[in-house]
């Protein structure tokens, strides 16, 4: 028996303006390659007779009842068929503008596209918009089908005219279609069988063309990128492995390779490649969903990208230029908080600047728009709260594409063109503005603090075990209070029930932002303000540092999560209360945060 495990499968999307014949083409492909289940064609024909409607190949696809009643394809559908060469999944994407999000969904899972144009109606708005979106989604294999050639009497002149007109448009998008085919889908001309009616056309049929599409060269040769999807430790199941799980987007990594986690910058080597029910692997390759274990154990979060130190590294930036396609019910506006999802990372993002809106049908640009509306394609600048990791679109499509979530809905998608360097972060901008308008008191924080023999300080304790750090923080407050310091400890639950009672679900970024703002006020009164935050990362500590400016912060890390700094101390005290307190108090003394100190 032939082994078909290796038989290739290609996803194809069929797009084009509504009624230009997409469904008919697909129906015809299925019928002429004998791919329909037995009896299907007959039953649809019977259905048409019963309802006195003329038979349409498109009906074959309209498996859904409510679709047939509306008479339009409302969603993407997957259709399976095969040729001698390989198998196909055809993704049927509707042409109506309201269903553009479905078209984009369909196309983003495709490796090749068939663009359909009605020979009679000619190039319509959606013919162009779809072409534009295909270029943005990144599909390289494209064939243009000029359909309904029967209506224009199989006229070569009209075919050539349309071909030239459309090619002009596509070339501006850097799309070079594999070919243009004149077809009559209804009769099957040049779909699977060569047409007798167009002797002037010597090219391939549609089926021959899609069979000759080359699969995109795999991403194995590009630098290694594995976004961390999750970190697993199934201790409860007697499994001590700490596995970093993810799908490799590009490249290859082997055991012993030195890897770097970005944006945190932590480095180590790969210890093992992990999988289940497989022989021990020594490498992990683009496309695989497996796991790795590391030689050094350190704190890692989902969303970081594993790269190899020996290869070109991706960009890490909080400000970047993108091409964005917007599908949201509400326009994208300035000042609103959105989420960006890129690789496995999710970050808060703001629209920073609309450079221009591109009219997808004539490629003209509009400069002075103040918001991005539904179905707009925009070139704009986005700013994230924390830096994100990405590659440039020209270098690696997979790690440069992103979606934007508005409230709960994916509302936009796009590709990153380039990072913008030396830009102020969102927080820096905010603090600058805040300090500018802050009405300053005549009494400085230092004046207030010197009364108590202390300097004002924002103290943060972090670690993985929240009860333990809370206990240490409370004891620290008590010890400092007992020696006459003006000190205040605030635990996260207190904040949540009061200042954060507006949260419907816990919003960590906002939580940290509020603590930072609160610290700025409290330290201004000259007190030592103590709080705890579980698993603080480098960017969050930077965020707190910035928000608390011009006052000072000091962070104690009990888990070795952070990079040590002037104001970040790693305490390897194993959460022991007494030793930790002893160490903290000594540091406070050395740094002149508390002036006198009796043990």
């Amino acid at each position, binding site marked *: 028996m032939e082994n078909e495990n290796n*038989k290739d499968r290609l996803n194809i999307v069929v797009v084009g303006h509504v009624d230009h014949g997409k469904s008919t083409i697909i129906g015809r492909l299925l019928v002429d390659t004998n791919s329909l289940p037995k009896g299907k064609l007959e039953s649809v024909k019977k259905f048409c007779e019963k309802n006195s409607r003329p038979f349409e190949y498109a009906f074959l696809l309209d498996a859904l009842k409510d679709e047939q009643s509306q008479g339009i394809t409302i*969603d993407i559908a997957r259709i399976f068929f095969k040729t001698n060469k390989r198998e196909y999944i055809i993704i049927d994407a509707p042409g109506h503008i309201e269903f553009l999000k479905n078209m984009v969904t369909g196309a983003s899972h495709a490796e090749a596209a068939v663009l359909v144009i009605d020979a009679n109606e000619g190039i319509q708005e959606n013919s162009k918009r779809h072409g534009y979106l295909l270029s943005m989604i990144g599909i390289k294999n494209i064939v243009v089908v000029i359909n309904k050639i029967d209506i224009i009497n199989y006229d070569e002149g009209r075919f050539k005219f349309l071909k030239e007109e459309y090619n002009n448009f596509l070339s501006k998008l850097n799309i070079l279609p594999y070919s243009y085919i004149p077809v009559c889908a209804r009769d099957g001309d040049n779909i699977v069988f060569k047409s007798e009616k167009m002797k002037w056309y010597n090219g391939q049929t549609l089926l021959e063309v899609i069979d000759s599409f080359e699969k995109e060269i795999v991403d194995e040769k590009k630098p290694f990128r594995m976004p961390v999807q999750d970190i697993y430790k199934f201790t409860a*199941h007697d499994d001590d492995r700490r596995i970093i799980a993810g799908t490799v987007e590009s490249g290859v990594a082997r055991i012993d390779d030195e890897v770097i986690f970005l944006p945190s910058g932590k480095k180590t080597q790969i210890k093992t490649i992990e999988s289940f029910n497989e022989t021990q692997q020594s490498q992990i390759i683009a496309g695989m*969903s497996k796991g790795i274990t590391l030689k050094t154990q350190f704190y890692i979060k989902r969303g970081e990208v594993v790269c190899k130190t020996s290869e070109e590294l991706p960009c890490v930036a909080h400000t970047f230029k993108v091409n964005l396609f917007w599908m949201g019910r509400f326009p994208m506006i300035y000042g609103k908080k959105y989420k960006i999802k890129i690789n496995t990372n999710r970050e808060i993002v703001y629209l920073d600047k609309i450079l221009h809106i591109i009219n997808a049908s004539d490629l003209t640009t509009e400069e002075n728009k103040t918001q991005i509306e539904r179905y707009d394609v925009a070139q704009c600048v986005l700013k994230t709260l924390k830096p994100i990791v990405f590659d440039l679109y020209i270098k690696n499509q997979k790690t440069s594409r992103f979606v934007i979530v508005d409230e709960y*809905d994916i509302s936009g998608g796009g590709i990153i063109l380039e990072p913008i360097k030396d830009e102020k972060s969102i927080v820096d901008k905010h603090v600058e503005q805040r300090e500018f308008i802050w009405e300053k008191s005549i009494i400085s924080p230092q004046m207030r603090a010197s009364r108590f023999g202390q300097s004002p300080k924002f103290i943060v304790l972090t670690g993985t075990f929240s009860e333990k750090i809370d206990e240490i923080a409370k004891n620290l407050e008590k010890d400092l209070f007992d020696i006459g310091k003006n000190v205040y400890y605030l635990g996260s639950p207190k904040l949540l029930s009061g200042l954060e009672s507006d949260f419907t679900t816990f919003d960590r970024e906002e939580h940290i932002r509020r603590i930072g703002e609160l610290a700025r006020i409290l330290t201004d009164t000259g007190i030592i303000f103590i709080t705890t935050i579980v698993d603080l990362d480098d960017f969050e500590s930077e965020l707190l540092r910035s928000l608390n400016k011009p006052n000072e912060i000091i962070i104690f890390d009990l888990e070795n999560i952070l990079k040590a700094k002037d104001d970040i101390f790693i305490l390897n005290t194993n959460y022991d209360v007494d030793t930790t307190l002893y160490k903290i108090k000594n540091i406070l003394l050395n740094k002149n945060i508390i002036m006198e100190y009796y043990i």
Partner: protein
Amino acid sequence: MNRLEKLESLSIYIIREAYREFKNLCMLWSIGKDSTVLLWLARKAFFGHVPFPLVHIDTNFKIPEMIMYRDKLAMEWKLTMIVGQNKKALEEKRTFPDGKVNRIECCRLLKSEALKYTLSGEFVRYKLNLETGKYEIWENKEPFTGVIVGIRADEEGSRSKERYFSPRDKQSEWDISEQPPELWNQFKTDFAPGTHIRIHPLLDWTEIDIWEYIKKENIPVVSLYFNQGNGKRYRSLGCWPCTKPIESDSKSLDEIIFELKSGKLKNIAERSGREQDKEDGGTLETLRKEGYM
């Protein structure tokens, strides 16, 4: 990577994504080949473990071999095995085999309703005790908000319109016209409170992929799929009153795969042995809108 490796990789990615994003997550296990492949993929995704409960809806009319096989694997693989049932309908004998309702209504009661209220925690749920091998009432009454389901797009019309992550509203209805966009590998994972999500990691798999994968990975499947010497085997498993075996001599995985590819089953729909599909062209669509898979 070959075709099966690619399918496996995407499915694992989707399962891991679901595990990451949903606190109250479960996987439906119908005991059939598809959801067993799904279960296997979960074991691959989590390196031999299955970190969420498996939910099985017992209609009380399942072929006995199926139940034995379910419990055997659950013990062996240390699964958190949860079973639910529409006790009331069964007690009142409102079933097709009892002659009180038609096939569709029977499916609706024993599958759709049973599933809906088992997921919501309103029906009593039973959990397999891995020490004793017995089922005990499960104290946890929290609803599952994320449900991983092993449907395939090639099965029949309506299924081909699904997304990998497909939201249902509070009535677990499926609104086909308002499906969220899914771009590349970015799925909808942000929800208004109260939304339920069906996750479909097998959407791109075909029946042949399933069998070839079972063979490649050596996954144990119920013996009912194979001809036991009487010239019959099941192609699709369900309740015994409504699922008939097909005429087939296939005794092994290789024979099944051959039969599907080039043999007599090449152009015959997979669920042709299921009687409820025949009563009305839109049955599955209706059942699906109500939440049955």
